[in-house]
């Protein structure tokens, strides 16, 4: 996820950790409303949610999620060429619910720490 917040550069390691941590969740959320193919997922996160993903990392991630049974992948005959669509499986949906819960809980703890430190939103 590219940094688009005002305030300038972020330390590279921190940015990378945050991006890597959120990538899987972001991709699973992107396909939670229905089947999407790789570029569609990238566009969905980039243009609509300002979450630009490194394109070369998305396909290995999708491949792994499909291998683990969280996503179902299938080739569809679309124009002008076939595309591989991904959708959440029942297992993936359960895992997504857990991930969202964990993310919110973690985020709330950080928010609390920030407010204790006097950092305004």
């Amino acid at each position, binding site marked *: 996820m590219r940094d688009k917040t005002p305030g300038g550069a972020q330390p590279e390691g921190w940015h990378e950790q945050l991006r890597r*941590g959120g990538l899987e969740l972001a991709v699973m959320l992107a396909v939670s409303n229905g089947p999407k193919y*790789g570029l569609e997922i990238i566009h969905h996160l980039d243009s609509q949610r300002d979450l630009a993903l490194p*394109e*070369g990392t998305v396909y290995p*991630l999708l491949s792994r999620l499909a291998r683990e049974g969280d996503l179902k992948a299938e080739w569809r005959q679309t124009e002008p060429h076939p595309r591989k669509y991904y959708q959440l499986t029942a297992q993936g949906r359960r895992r997504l619910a857990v991930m969202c819960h*964990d993310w919110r809980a973690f985020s709330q703890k950080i928010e609390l720490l920030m407010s204790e430190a006097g950092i305004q939103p």
Partner: protein
Amino acid sequence: MILSETGESRVRGYLFVLERSLRTFLPAATAADAVREVESHIRDRVAEVEPVPDERAALERLLDELGPPLRVARAYSIEMSAEEAVATGRVAPMVRSLFQLAALGVGTFFGSVAVFVGYAVGLAFIAIAVMKPIFPDNVGLFLEGPSFGALFPAPGRPLGGYWVMPICVAIGVGLLIVTHRGARRLIEVWLRRRRRPV
């Protein structure tokens, strides 16, 4: 944008390198499927670009966003090797995975070095056991030094005798088993951390 023959050649070249890289560790059918998906991505990206006079620059920009084929292949490779290593415990994916992990960070680098040292020392003990009957006067524990191992020329007469063989085999095999379990654990922990949301 509709690609010229030169542009098509560039795309085919990219996909060729990607497929060759993927096939070094993925089954041919899986590699072909991955390449087909990346090709579909490139075709879609090309179709999105408005026709421009400098097709080459536009195409290179587009391929840059995807990343060099070797890097894309490596992203597939790291996950696959690590999963295979943890699931099967086989030596080849384990070693491949450790080499890849070593390049990812300081912790995994030192972890991988420790594992390779463990393997090397374990193999060295077994080698000593194998060499003892071949070079009985050069292998064993020597009081001169004192030193232990296979020494040419021998600094003196080795102590004991053939007792060194079972002891070295036991230590060597024990070290290899412990190291192998440690390596598997290291990869497993790395995989788990990598998949944790934060």
